[in-house]
């Protein structure tokens, strides 16, 4: 029987416990990728071997499925005698892949800043780091917020794949409840609504940040 309030009342605490793992994974992945992706993009903007390395990394992680990366990290580290928890493996794989996507977003942002802007800064005596901090990055950040928000939403949804390596996230909890009850529909509906509320928070946060950082241009 779908829409059974008693069933949902029993289900909810378990799902919220799983949601806690989902939120932890999402927040950590987003925070790490914001920094890691920028480092990769800056490396990619240099000339020389570092740029090659960054480009190769981006290509590889973007062109293989997340699930495969997760299995490779999970079992690979196991074979290598470094068994990490499922949570850590999931986090690592999520950061690896999304770091590549976020780096591409930053790269687009960096390319949108014209060479003239760099020259104006240099002509005023700015050295590389000052130039990036004062002139380039503020412009990049204002422009990348919308695509970064999309990526953040995509990360939240992607965390559901850690269920495959036995992490008790909301998806895994849901699967267990589905197997042990006939009320499949209520489980997935509730899970869907929880995901929706998480992604909505990101959307609103991004819109707020966009307004704060926007400049007339």
């Amino acid at each position, binding site marked *: 029987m779908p829409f059974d309030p008693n069933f949902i009342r029993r289900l909810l605490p378990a799902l919220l416990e799983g949601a806690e793992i989902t939120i932890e994974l999402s927040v950590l992945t987003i925070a790490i990728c914001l920094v890691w992706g920028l480092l990769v993009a800056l490396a990619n903007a240099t000339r020389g071997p570092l740029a090659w390395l960054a480009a190769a990394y981006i290509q590889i992680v973007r062109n293989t499925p997340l699930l495969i990366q997760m299995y490779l990290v999970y079992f690979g580290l196991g074979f290598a005698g470094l068994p990490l928890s499922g949570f850590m493996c999931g986090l690592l794989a999520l950061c690896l892949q999304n770091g590549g996507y976020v780096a591409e977003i930053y790269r687009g942002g960096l390319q949108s800043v014209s060479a003239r802007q760099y020259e104006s800064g*240099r002509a005023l005596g700015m*050295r590389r780091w000052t130039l990036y901090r004062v002139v380039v990055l503020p412009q990049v950040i204002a422009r990348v917020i919308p695509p970064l928000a999309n990526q953040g939403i995509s990360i939240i949804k992607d965390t559901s794949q850690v269920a495959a390596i036995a992490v008790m996230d909301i998806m895994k909890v849901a699967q267990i409840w589905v197997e042990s009850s006939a009320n499949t529909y209520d489980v997935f509906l509730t899970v869907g609504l929880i995901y929706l509320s998480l992604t909505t928070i990101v959307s609103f946060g991004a819109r707020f940040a966009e307004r704060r950082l926007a400049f007339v241009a």
Partner: protein
Amino acid sequence: MPDTEPGRMATMPRLMLEMRGVAKRFGANEVLRGVSLSVPRGQTVVVIGPSGSGKTTLLRCINMLEDYEAGIVAVDGVPIGYAVDEKSGRRQRMAERAIAAARETIGIVFQSYNLFPHMSVLSNIIAAPIRVKGVSRPQAETRARELLAMVGLSDKEKEYPARLSGGQQQRVAIARALAMEPKIMLFDEVTSALDPELVGEVLAAMRQLARDGMTMVVVTHEMSFARDVADRVVFMDGGVIVEEGPPETMFSTPKTERVRQFLKRHNDRYRI
């Protein structure tokens, strides 16, 4: 070093800009073929010449926005970009840090509007003094307001560049360059992209600057500006200085046929 040689100082007026034998190529294209140019302190040199003659490249070499293969540049006796080793006489590229420091002494304004779009007018002007020179914010703001008053934009300090006209943006760009208290100002066709009715306000600011004793190198097609403001006019063609002299003689009795041709074509086009 020259400061310790008073005798030499007395016979040679101190040059604010000295370029010797600057040569620059883009691939096979020799854009500057050994250009030497000296500008005494407080003087304005106007550079004219046909499109592609190397005027922009010349200015960009002065502050090392463009690297060059031969020659040296010094501002107020301090080398920029390349220093000559005393003993070997060899030319050596300076460290990035030294080049950046030297650039602080050279203000440049480009043809295209290059203000920082994410900053207000005031922030555009105080950014480099604060972040590069370490000037305190109140001090930088006071100076910025003086400069904005000088270019006639006191009421625009909170505005963003996108909300300003081209002429206003160029005047802010002049103020931004001046805020670093440069020893010399370089202008590359700063009025060429402007609507005709906005040209005057920018030229007026430059005239004022010249009157106040700034040393300037000005690339322009505005011949009336050259006639009024220039101490010396330099004609470039094919990467060399073909002729130079005071504006009175350059414009009325040029020595070379090339300058005559250029001025004639120019006057036909602009009917002046």
